[in-house]
Every structure is written in structure tokens, then in C-alpha cells.
């Protein structure tokens, strides 16, 4: 392992990692080996190679990390180029992870960025357990929760119920939206996880169907009318063709029809840009805010890897619309957290409700997304599949049966698989 790349270039980083001072972490040890140890033994995973990801790769490499992996399932688009600086117009269409890795590897001597052009779900616990620090630069809450659930599932508990700290992989999570951003440090099993603080995420704006269908007032209502009601009726590009937000022909068709609808109701304000924004759920983004949040994340990574200073405890918000505002607070753990508490969540339900109703109720009650499987253990101890999307034909009749008819009893544990969890989660039935 040729890691003695100790040219003078790392002098500044070494000052911070290797000199003692009053503001280091309590666990700081003064040693001239700290940077080498970090470069040799700390493998970092960056999840997402977009606005935050590109900045993260640059920051981590220049902070001294040598072994960095990056996952991203997307390819490069033109609209990325205003901030994802590792990509050029000629790269449009290429995989983000691979392009980003190649760029950083060629620019910065000695770093090894390994790309993974695939989904986070393509890897298992064994893969994620290989990293010492995981940093998320994602634009999806579902994906964040999935990673959070994965990392929390890796934590082992000792006999007394204490966390085995050697199984904790710190998770640093960054997010931006326009000129706002946040960065948080999660020590799974010790500090609040993503699931603990789900209510910090504002709900998505959805317009009521009756407004869209009967009483439009805003240009957005007109656009949603075309998306939800008109397109499925007219299927302008073929029977099986659903809306592709990246296809200008689709957007143009939607734009024209939205203008027609708006004209009918004397509504102003339908523009092509607005149509794209609504159809693609576009979130505005700039280089500067992404730079800020990714920078804090990378600083946290260095602090955690070297104890050069105490990490953020534990949630920072940032907003530079009016002046510059930033502050950090200590978010609290949810003692009944579905993910990181060691208690089994109880779900109250009438036994006369159908399985379908139960699943829909679960989705809203504990924020599950798209339940793919629901199983339980019968009194003989064998696994019983109640419903599985994968085996829809074989299991769909169960959806209309009541919980009682399915022979489920009060206190029974039920296992679920959904989009936010890499693994099964368990809840306990409580009949009312």
C-alpha cells in the first residue's frame, strides 16, 4: 500500500490532525501517524454523485482521504452542469459515478475513487459494513431512509443492551434545496437517526383531485389536470407510454394542453418552465449552497476520522437568502423509533379490517412506502406469507380477507418489506 504520500502537500491537514490543542475531541491522541492511519484504514462511501456528491469527492480527497467509493445510478444531464463541476457538456449521458471518479482520480494525486454505477439497493450489508464512514448527498427521502436503515441494522448490541461501538458506522447526511441546506451527523444506536426525525421533512405539496378536475385556480392545477387526467385519457404517444419528464416532446404536449385548460378558465401563468417544474418535481439548485453543505459534511468526516475536533452534535441548518443564517441543534432520539429503538412498534387495528386496509393504514401510520411483502410466523413457528407483490397472483386473494380470517391474533408479530428498508421490519398487532 503506497500511502506514504507525505509530500509537503499534506502539511496543513497534518497540523489539524496531529497537533494537540484545547479544542480537540476528548479521544484525540497526539501522533504523527494519524494522517497515514487515516489514509490507510479509513474507507469512505459517498452516496450520490450529483450536486453534493461532486463537492464531497473533491473535499474528501483534498482533506486527505485516500480510499473513497461513490454510488450513483444516474447519468449526466445538461441541467446538472450549473453545479456538478466534475461533468462537462461532452459527458452528458455518461454515468455520474464513473465520470466523477475518473475526474478526481486524474486531478488529485494518490487518491483512489472507486465508482459504482448502480442502485444503493444492489448492495447488501456486507458491502456497507466495509466502510468506516458513509456520507449521503441524496435528493430522495426514501433513499436516505434506506441507507439509514441499512446502517442502523449493522449495529450490534452487547449482552447488557449496550451498543458495540465497533459496529457503529457514522452516517453523515447532507441535503439542499435552493438556498437552504442541512447537515447532520448520525451515530447509529447512539444519536437520532433519520427515522427518529422524519417530521423534520415537510410533506410534499399535492393538490386535491376535485380542485384539479373541477375548480382549477392556479396554473399548477392546469398542469396537474393534464398530467393526471388528460394524458391517461389521450395517451398521445402510444398506449403504454407514460410521461417522461426528460422528453421535450412530452413536456411540449403537456404545456400546450395546460395552456388550453388555463385559457378556458382565464388563468394566467402557465409557462414551459413551470410545466417542467411541476412534472419533474424540480427543486431549484445552485453551486454555492451545495458547496457549503458538502463542505460541512467533509469537515465532519475528517473530525470523526481523526478526532481533530468534536463532531457536530448533531443537526445543522443553513439558509443564505437573507444575510447568512446557520445554527446547530441537538435533535432528540425517538424512543419508539421504528428503526433505531430496540422496541417493537405496536400497531392498533380492528381485527375485522382487511389485509389491504391494514397495509394502507401501515403506510400512513409508520411512513412506509410501497409495502412489497407482509409475512408472519404461525403457531407452529413456520413462516407464513400473507401477501407478496412478487407473487401477486398467488397471494392477492388474501388482500380482501380480514385479519381475523387470516387467523392473526392479538400480539402477533408481523414482518414487512418496503422501499425504505433493506430488510424486513417487525411490528406487533394490537387488536382494538
Amino acid at each position: 500500500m503506497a500511502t506514504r504520500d507525505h509530500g509537503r502537500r499534506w502539511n496543513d491537514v497534518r497540523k489539524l490532525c496531529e497537533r494537540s490543542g484545547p479544542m480537540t475531541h476528548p479521544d484525540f491522541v497526539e501522533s504523527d501517524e494519524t494522517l497515514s492511519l487515516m489514509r490507510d484504514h479509513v474507507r469512505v462511501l459517498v452516496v450520490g454523485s450529483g450536486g453534493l456528491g461532486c463537492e464531497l469527492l473533491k473535499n474528501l480527497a483534498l482533506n486527505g482521504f485516500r480510499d473513497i467509493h461513490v454510488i450513483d445510478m444516474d447519468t449526466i444531464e445538461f441541467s446538472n452542469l450549473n453545479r456538478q463541476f466534475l461533468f462537462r457538456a461532452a459527458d452528458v449521458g455518461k454515468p455520474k459515478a464513473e465520470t466523477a471518479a475518473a475526474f478526481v482520480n486524474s486531478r488529485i494525486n494518490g487518491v483512489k475513487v472507486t465508482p459504482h454505477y448502480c442502485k444503493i439497493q444492489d448492495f447488501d450489508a456486507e458491502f456497507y459494513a466495509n466502510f468506516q464512514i458513509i456520507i449521503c448527498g441524496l435528493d430522495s427521502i426514501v433513499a436516505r431512509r434506506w441507507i439509514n436503515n441499512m446502517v442502523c441494522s449493522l449495529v450490534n448490541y452487547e449482552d447488557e443492551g449496550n451498543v458495540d461501538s465497533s459496529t457503529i458506522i457514522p452516517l453523515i447526511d447532507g441535503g439542499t434545496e435552493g438556498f437552504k441546506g442541512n447537515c447532520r451527523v448520525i451515530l447509529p444506536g447512539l444519536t437520532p437517526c433519520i427515522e427518529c426525525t422524519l417530521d423534520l421533512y415537510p410533506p410534499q405539496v399535492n393538490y386535491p383531485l376535485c380542485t384539479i378536475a373541477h375548480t382549477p385556480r392556479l396554473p399548477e392545477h392546469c398542469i396537474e389536470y393534464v398530467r393526471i387526467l388528460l394524458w391517461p385519457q389521450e395517451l398521445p404517444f402510444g398506449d403504454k407510454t407514460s410521461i417522461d419528464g426528460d422528453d421535450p416532446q412530452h413536456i411540449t404536449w403537456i404545456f400546450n394542453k395546460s395552456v388550453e385548460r388555463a385559457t378556458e378558465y382565464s388563468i394566467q401563468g402557465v409557462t414551459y418552465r413551470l410545466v417542467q417544474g411541476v412534472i419533474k418535481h424540480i427543486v431549484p439548485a445552485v453551486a454555492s449552497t451545495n458547496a457549503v453543505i458538502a463542505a460541512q459534511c467533509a469537515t465532519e468526516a475528517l473530525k470523526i476520522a481523526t478526532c481533530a475536533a468534536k463532531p457536530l452534535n448533531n443537526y445543522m441548518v443553513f439558509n443564505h437568502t437573507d444575510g447568512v443564517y446557520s445554527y446547530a441543534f441537538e435533535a432528540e432520539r425517538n424512543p419508539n423509533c421504528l428503526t433505531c429503538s430496540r422496541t417493537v412498534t405496536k400497531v392498533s387495528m380492528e381485527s375485522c379490517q382487511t389485509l389491504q386496509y391494514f397495509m394502507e393504514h401501515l403506510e400512513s401510520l409508520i411512513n412506509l412506502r410501497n409495502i412489497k411483502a407482509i409475512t408472519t410466523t404461525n403457531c407452529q413457528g413456520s413462516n407464513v406469507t400473507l401477501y407478496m407483490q412478487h407473487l401477486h397472483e398467488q397471494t392477492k386473494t388474501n388482500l380482501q380477507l380480514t385479519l381475523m380470517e387470516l387467523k392473526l391474533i392479538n400480539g402477533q408479530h408481523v414482518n414487512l418489506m418496503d422501499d425504505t428498508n433493506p430488510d424486513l421490519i417487525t411490528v406487533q398487532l394490537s387488536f382494538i
Partner: protein
Amino acid sequence: MSDSIENSPSPLSVEKNRKYDRQLRLWGDHGQMRLECASVCLINATAVGTEILKNLILPGIGSFCIVDSSMVTDDDLGCNFFLDKESLKLNRGKSVMRYLLEMNEEVTGSCETGPLESLIAETPKFFRTFKIVVATGITDRELQLLSALLWGYNIPLLVVDCCGFIGYIRLVTEEHTVIESHPDNAIDDLRIDSPFPELQEHVDNLDLRAMSSSELGHVPYLVILLKAVSVWKENHGMESFPRMKDKQQFKSIIKLMMDNIKPTLNGNENSPEKENFEEALKAVNTALVPTKIPNEVMEILNDHKVNPLDVNAKVDDFWLMVYGLGQFVRRHGCLPLRGSLPDMFSDSRSYIQLQQLYRKEAGRHINEIGSAVGDLLPSSRPGPQSSSLQLFCRNAAFLRVVRCRSIQEETDSPNCQLIRYELNQSIDSSINWYIIYLAANRFYAEYSRYPGDCANGSYESDVSPLRSAVRSVLSALQCSTVANSFPDDYIHEWCRYGNSKLHSVASFIAGTAAQEVIKIVTHQFVPLNNTLIYNAITASIDVYQL
């Protein structure tokens, strides 16, 4: 974003619309055009400096010029993304050009390799071409010279630095006006306490008792509130208006109206939703707050720039429009109507009708202010464009003026009161870092190196001289009384840093600084006033008006 201005087709090319889409949604085509016409000067291609440029080049700044006379060192390679080994010992400004420019082919750039002081002394007019000058890693002496020059030219200066885990930004601009401040939480401009005549007429002509249940269930809550106010006036007198203390009573009027929704005679219609009435009840809290002119706007109206207004001086259109606004406010006692409505549960026609009423009235106000401005201008001077006037009136409640003291003022008459207050507030006030930052620059002036910038074994020996520098800074700030209680930890910590530049800290402060540049150039969003301290350990930011 408001309509009509944005309804017109984009003046930007298809390619630019594609590339810049995500940022155009924040500052619009007009903001983008201002960015593309701007030229920025960067003093010193440090890590902070080049990251600031990166964050300006990516969104499409017109052009930049780097002034840097230093050579690339190993330390630079360790923290600067835009250098590689081949650049060692070459001019640093020149070396970063290629990697910077390749990020956006629309941007042009150049560099000056001579020393800054010579440039200031010999060709000061060089700086007049820039919209703003960003300075990183300059000495106290360079700062004095540069800031005095730029203040004279009325060009904003942004000083940006970092050391270890601490970042520093200082904005200097004599006056910066903002029409589009884009506040996060603006109160709607409904004028429930002072409905304009056409609105009142419209509401009076609506007979709620003659409506079917379905129609009643689709009356916009704005109308419901105004009807309820009419009932209130009948009971309490025409001059009376419900206040917050009358909230419950006012809500009962609405509830009574709500109870009048009866199911239809044939019984087929489901009992209608009363969503609009629920909205009305919820809106009572804000509706009863009297329409008032925000303090910040009052201050602008009373600003010396318009009292009196010197039309013949080179006064910005902004002040001409403020003058017109002042006339309007004097005559009517309120700001021009914003003209936009929030969405409200309603049938389409009723809502659009209301919207049109508000738009027409707002249009009348814009014309009135436009005339007032036109009247005062000599024929030789063209007035503000109608699109600017429209933008101005729509944003009348959000106007902001930022004035940052000069470096000279900060040095000659420091804000001792604020500093003393901060020092007394908490032993861990971020003002400590400001004090140390000043002290470190004094240290440099005396020893030609920064505290702790030496071998690992000897950085602690800089603690004592840095402590002396801190004392003299505190003395200059008339804070000698607290010199003994100044936390020694901070001094040790700064020596530990040894002038180190950690890339991620540089990147954070550069991201923040770059956005301030964009605010100055686009005149949108509100710049900080005037000193920012960033602490990467606590992940916190403090801004002081020093």
C-alpha cells in the same frame, strides 16, 4: 415568482435555459443577465479564492480577473483543486486559469501577475471595471490600501479568509439596494381592514343568502371574511374593525354564516364540505392584523437619499421609485397593493374574479407611482422601465437597503459597544475569533509569518506573542478590561492551526462568499451586514455589524 414579467419568452438561448434551469428558478432570466454582464476581480488564487471563482463560473459570471503575484507551493497543492504538480513554482494566478475556465466556456478570464500594491499605486483605474472585488489572504497593509481605493470608486469589496476550523467574511459596500429580497415568509397583502372600493362593491353585490349550498361552499374565504367584517360594522359602527382581542366574537360571525349552509331540498346532494369556511376561520389570526408598512420600508422612505431627492445627481432608479412611493404613501397612507392572492378553496370563476380585481387595483397604483416619478424627472432623463416599476411596486413591502461601514470606519471608530456586549454575553462568543483574527494579522505584520506557522514542536511558543497581540487589539477596541478574562484556549487553538488551510473549511466559506457576490451582482436576496464568523467545529455562523 410573479406572473406577467415571467410570462414572456425567455431572452436566454435554449442551451442556457437547459444548463442554468435550476438556478433560473431562483433569480430569473433578468438575474442571470446581470450575472453574465458582471466582471469580478479576485485577489489571490488561494483555495478559498479559487473555490469562490468556481461557484461564480459555474452559474455563468461574465468574466473574472485574478491578481496574484505568488508562486505555487506544496501547501497550495494540498488544498487547491485547480492546481496540479506541473504548476509548482509557477505563477499561481496563471496556473489556475485553465482548470477554472474549462468548467464553463461562456466565461472569460484573465490574470495580473504583478504585486497588488503596485497595481493599486500605478494603475488604480484597473479596478473600476469590476462589479465587485474579492480579496483572500491579503495583509493588513494591502487591505488598508485596497479598501480605501475601492471605497472611493464605490466598488464593493468582499474580504474572505480561513484558518484551521474558522472562516471569516467581511462585506464592504457603501450602499446596496434590493427590490427583490424574496422573503421566505411573506404575509399576504389582502387589505381586509381597508378594502378598495371595487372590492367592497364586489363583495356587497354578492348575496350569500341567495346562494345554493354548493355555491356557498365555494365562496372564497376572502369574501367570507369581508362579509363578516360588514356584519361586525353593522353591530359596532362603520369605523370599527375587529382586533385580535375580538377574535372569538369575529369567529362566531363566521360560524353563524357557516351554519346557514343547509342541505338541498331534494336531499341528493351530499352535505357539502365547508372547507372555505374552515380556511376563513384559520385566516382570522392573520386577517385581523392591521395592514401596516414594514419598519424597514418606512426607514427607506425616510432615507436621506430622498429627503430631499436630488434629481440631477446620478441617483439610482431605485431612489426615484422610492420617491414616487413616498408620494403615494403620503397620499394614501399605505403601500401600493401587491396584486397577488394566495390560493383559496373556491370555484374557478369566483377566484379569478377576485384576482382580476386585485390585479387591476395594483395596476392603478403602479400607474400612479409611475406618473409621480415621471413628473419629477427632467425630459433629458429617461425614467425606470415599466417592468422595473412593476417589480418595484409588487415588492414594495420587501425593499431593502444595506449599508456596510468602510474598513476605515471600522479601524478608526470600532463598534466597541457591540464587541463589549458580545464578550460579556458568553465566554464562547464567536467574537473571540474576530479578535484573534485581527491579532493574527498584527502578529504577521510584526513577525512576517502567522501564529503557529512553524514546525510541530514549536507552535506553542507563539502563544505568548499572540496573547500580546490580542491584548493590543482589545485595547484598540476599548475592551482592555476584559483582556484578562479573554479565554486562553482560543489563543492556543489558533496557534495549533498554524495558518493551515483545510480544503473543506475553505470550500464552506467560499460557498457562502460566492453567494454574497451573486447577491451584489444580481441585486436579489439580501447581503450580510457586515462581518461573518464561521466555526466549523460547532457548525455555526455569527454575523456582526462592526
